[in-house]
Each structure stands twice: as C-alpha cells, then as structure tokens.
C-alpha cells in the first residue's frame, strides 16, 4: 500500500515538474523581453519616479496623518461640545445671575453681544455710565491740548 502511494506521489511529482516547466516562458520570449527597446530608459524613468516619490514623502503621508488625526479631532470636538452644553446649562441656572468668571470679570459682561465685555466690566465695577466715560475722555483731551 505504501509502495503504491509513493509510486503515485512520484507520478504526480513528475507531472508537477512538467506543469511548472510548461508555465515558463520559452527562450525566444525571454530574449525578446531582454532586448526590448527603451528598456533602460524605462528603468531610468522608474528610478526618477521613485526618487520623486521619496522626495514628496511629506505630501504622500498627509492622508495617513489625516486618517489618524480625524478620530482624535472628533474626540476633542465632542469634549468641547459637551463642555459648552454643560457651561450653558449652568449659566442658565437662577443662582448664576451675576457670577464672576475670573480676573474680576462678570459673566454677563462677557456674554453681552451689544457691548464689549471689558468695557461692560469696567463700567459696572466703577458705577460709571457711557456718558461719564465720554466726559472723562473729553476733559483729558482738553488738558492735553492746553499743555
């Protein structure tokens, strides 16, 4: 039985070698390929192309960088969005009608769209109106002109 199997394997191995040889190119085809016109020029062109690709490696790596950066950016954006929503809801709370947000600035002053935040803070901290400030500016101008 073993002898029969090994004979069969030998038979198949012989056939396999013939199939492998049959799949190879004949000598004429090999010769034609080796003597193909402009073959060296094509090699040079390929080398030049590869050199160019190596030099512009920064451009080619951009999609890869973007691919990696997009999830990180999405995470940061969602955290920022979450923080914004959270701060918005806490600002709407009744106890936060007038609250300072740091550096002595009032939150109202910063969120007021009509007046610049710093101006509003200065006015509210010093109990001044826009007219008072205007008068002070005019007086200072007159003094400087007299000098």
């Amino acid at each position, binding site marked *: 039985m073993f002898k029969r199997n090994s004979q*069969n*394997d030998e*038979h*198949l*191995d*012989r*056939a*396999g*070698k*013939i*199939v*492998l*040889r*049959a*799949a*190879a*190119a004949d000598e004429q*085809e*090999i*010769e*034609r*390929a*080796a003597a*193909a016109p402009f*073959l*060296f020029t*094509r*090699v*040079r062109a*390929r*080398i030049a192309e*590869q050199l160019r690709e190596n030099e512009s490696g920064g451009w080619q790596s951009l999609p890869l960088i973007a691919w990696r950066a997009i999830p990180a950016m999405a995470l940061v954006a969602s955290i920022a969005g979450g923080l914004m929503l959270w701060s918005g809801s806490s600002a709407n709370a009744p106890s936060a009608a007038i609250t300072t947000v740091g550096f002595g600035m009032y939150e109202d002053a910063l969120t007021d769209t009509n007046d610049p935040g710093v101006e509003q803070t200065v006015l509210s901290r010093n109990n001044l109106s826009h007219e008072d400030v205007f008068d002070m500016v005019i007086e200072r101008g007159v003094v400087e002109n007299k000098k």
Partner: protein
Amino acid sequence: MYPATEPTDDVLVAAAAAGDEAAFEALFNRHRRQVARIAGRFFAQREQIEEIIQDAFTKLYFALHTYHGTHEASFKAWLAQITVNACYDQLRRVRRRSEQNLGELTETETKDFSSQLRVAASDVETALVSRDLALKLLTRLSAEDRLVLTLLDVEGFSVAEIAEMTSWSISKVKVRAHRARAHLRKVLCKYV
C-alpha cells in the same frame, strides 16, 4: 561607456553607487539577460518579464550602497536574489488579482489537461503540456509554493541556495517545499 576595458562588476557597482550612470547602464546591459531568464521561469508573457527586469534593476539601483561584493560570483548571486524577490512580489500581486477568478477548468480543458498529464507523467521526454492550462492550474498555488517549487524543480537550486536567495531559513525552505509539493499533488490528482 565601459565596453573596451571590461571592468569587473564590483568596479561598476562602486562607480554606479557614486552616481556614474554609464556604469549603471553597463551593469544593466551585462546582466539583463540573466534577470530575464530568471523572470521567464515564473512568467510566460514578454510584458511580465520586462516588468520584472525594470523592477529588479530599480531595486538594484536603490540598494547599490548596500552591496559589499568579495568575489566574482557575488554580484550575480546578489542580483539573482533581488530578481527572485521581485518575482515573488509580482507572483503575490498576480495571485491577489486572480483570487476571485479561480474557477474550475471547463470540461474540455479538463479532458485536454488530463490526457496531456497522463502522457507527461509516463513519458517526460515527449511531454507537451499547454502553457495556458499550466498557468491556469498554477494560480491555485500560493506565491510561496510556486516560488520554492520553481527554484527547486525548474531551476535546480539547492535548499541552501534558495534559503540564501529568499532570506528564509533552511528549515523554512524544506517545510515550504514539502507543503508545496503536497499541495501541487492535491491539485494534480484530479487530472492524472
């Protein structure tokens, strides 16, 4: 140009690595037939062989500075190694492309192939197997199987030589050859 003085391969490699394009061209002209012959064992069409020649010499150009030849046969062996690797890469690409088209042979093809193989197995001298059918059948082998069997059975390289060419260990070449043979037998037993 270098035809008159016939410098050695090592001299040409050193000059080409230093940027001498004529030296690189001389190497190309001297060895392109060797590369074509190796490629021709794996690929039957002229365009495929030309592709391997271009690929192998491009790889050679970028690896010139890593060559440290010590004897006459060094450069040839090194170039053969680069070419075999280029063929292996191409076999893998071809295999990926043809993976979806791995249909069975038609009934007529099966009959033709069976009769061809029976004759081939009994009388090697007069064996004539259709190239198209052989190529179609060999798409069923992996690139590694095809590589190792071609180098062993068609080119007649030793296991040690194949190990050097492919940068595989000797035991890996042996195991791969054993598996590849078993796989090819399995493919062929339907037709013999």
